[in-house]
């Protein structure tokens, strides 16, 4: 291997330069551009922009959606990865594929799906009407907070299970089987054997899920129409950006910079996780 590296020094340097140039132009520059644009009108303007009334409201909606999506998808991730990695059954591949659906479909379709279910034309609309009439509550899903929550859950659905499944598959199920044969109860096995195995993958899955939930745009955009009530941070950024005047434009980047900082934190955490995983693999 060594000899090969020396022999192709020119190729090596060219490839490294291409790689670095690509990453700098495609990835580093946009990050710098957000921060640069956000501070164009000074720090005072920046602080003013990120504490505007609409922004605070959007921040609250975003955080709520993120917490709900992370909660639901963590629960689902743990349960579904248990099914998929600890048992053999027919249709396992199909189940895994179905769970991954939200990864490969347009977020706009996710929004549309809930409109066609709970919206005026949806089959569940009359049912909702009936429930509203009986309970005396006004239940709104589409263009209201529940729609935003459902859309966020939808797009982040596979994130946790996707991180856990490969780790559990690599660990195998011998330990769980041994424990079960010795009479341990299901939850006890999970707590003592499976959970410690999946711990870090779970943490990483939760981080990814939260990052995506904070930034979801297309699906929520289809289901949320009231600025200051059901708008999330990305929708608020969109509204500021499209309003056209130069103040709002800078404000859009100021609000974006919050999400950029979160994205950088996620990347750093991801790298720490990966480093830990490598260390543990090296120990074995």
């Amino acid at each position: 291997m060594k000899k090969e590296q020396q022999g192709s020094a020119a190729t090596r340097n060219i490839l490294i330069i291409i790689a670095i140039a690509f990453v700098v132009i495609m990835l580093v520059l946009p990050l710098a551009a957000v921060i640069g644009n956000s501070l164009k009108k000074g720090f005072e303007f920046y602080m003013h922009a990120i504490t505007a009334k609409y922004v605070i409201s959007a921040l609250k909606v975003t955080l709520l959606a993120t917490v709900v999506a992370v909660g639901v998808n963590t629960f689902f991730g743990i349960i579904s990865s248990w099914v998929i990695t600890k048992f053999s059954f027919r249709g396992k591949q199909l189940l895994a594929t179905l769970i991954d659906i939200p990864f490969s479909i347009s977020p706009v379709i996710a929004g549309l799906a809930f409109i066609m279910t709970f919206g005026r034309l949806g089959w569940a609309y009359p049912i909702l009407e009936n429930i509203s009439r009986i309970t005396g509550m006004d239940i709104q899903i589409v263009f209201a907070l529940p729609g935003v929550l459902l859309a966020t859950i939808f797009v982040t659905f596979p994130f946790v299970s996707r991180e856990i499944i490969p780790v559990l598959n690599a660990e195998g199920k011998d330990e769980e089987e041994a424990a079960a044969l010795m009479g341990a109860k299901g939850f006890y096995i999970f707590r003592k054997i499976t959970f410690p195995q999946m711990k870090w993958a779970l943490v990483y899955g939760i981080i990814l899920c939260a990052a995506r939930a904070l930034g979801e745009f297309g699906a929520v955009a289809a289901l949320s129409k009231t600025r200051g009530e059901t708008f999330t941070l990305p929708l608020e950024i969109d509204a500021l950006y499209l309003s056209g005047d130069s103040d709002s434009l800078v404000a859009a980047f100021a609000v974006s910079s919050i999400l950029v900082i979160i994205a950088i934190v996620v990347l750093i955490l991801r790298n720490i996780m990966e480093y830990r995983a490598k260390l543990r693999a090296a120990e074995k």
Partner: protein
Amino acid sequence: MKFTHSKRVIPGFGLTMGVTIAMLSLLILIPLASVFVYAFRMSGAEFLGTVTNSAVLYAFRTSIICALLAALINCVFGTILAWVLVRYDFPGKRFLDGLIELPFALPTAVAGITLSKMYSTTGILGKPLAGLGIEVSYTHLGLLVALVFIGIPFVVRAIQPVLEKLDPQYEEAAYILGASRRKTFFRIILSELRPALLTGFGLAFARGLGEYGSVIYISGNSAKEHTQVVSYVIMQKLNYMDYASATSIALILLIISFLMLLFVNMVQVRQSKRTNNV
């Protein structure tokens, strides 16, 4: 160990299976099925009428061609990036590696407005490019830039682990047998990487096809210039409350996405079968 197949030793199969299927159905499958149900209630003529509308056809053409091109570009740069990250050591390598997943972590709307600003005729990259007579923002080129941005991690992360595990024996054998380095790469390494490349390509293409947030600002969404993408058209129809058109277009996009997902899964199943048999 044969008995584990006939009788399950580990407890909790029924309960966890039930919860998994129930949540999957309620949160994903039933809402998606609503789209299908609504689309199938339309008459054939009505369906065809909405999807063969020229603006819709152009949007499909734009989305498919741009997503394909972007995925191909990402296959080239993704292979180079993965190769450099696995095979070479250089200062800043860890930093480079850590940045690859930025497009996953960065919200699409933020990426969209930033790229659009950067490549506009007054932006840091757009200005020099405009001097050369190349306009990026609000053209197909801009769309392509955004799709390359969001697609790159799929390809790099698909290839990297395979390249790490690749047995150097093959390369050494080829080398000893007198193959040139280039020949070794294209004949031996690339053929080993093919399933991973196909997976990365499929995922990047599927993502690019349905992408919304990162492309709508930079593409300009002009019907005249054919820079509208399919997800933009769906959103437009939704805003006009034209649900029939929105669902029919979505149905076609869904079918393409499912086919891509199926393709990626087949590649992966075949790959794991092959590696496990060795």
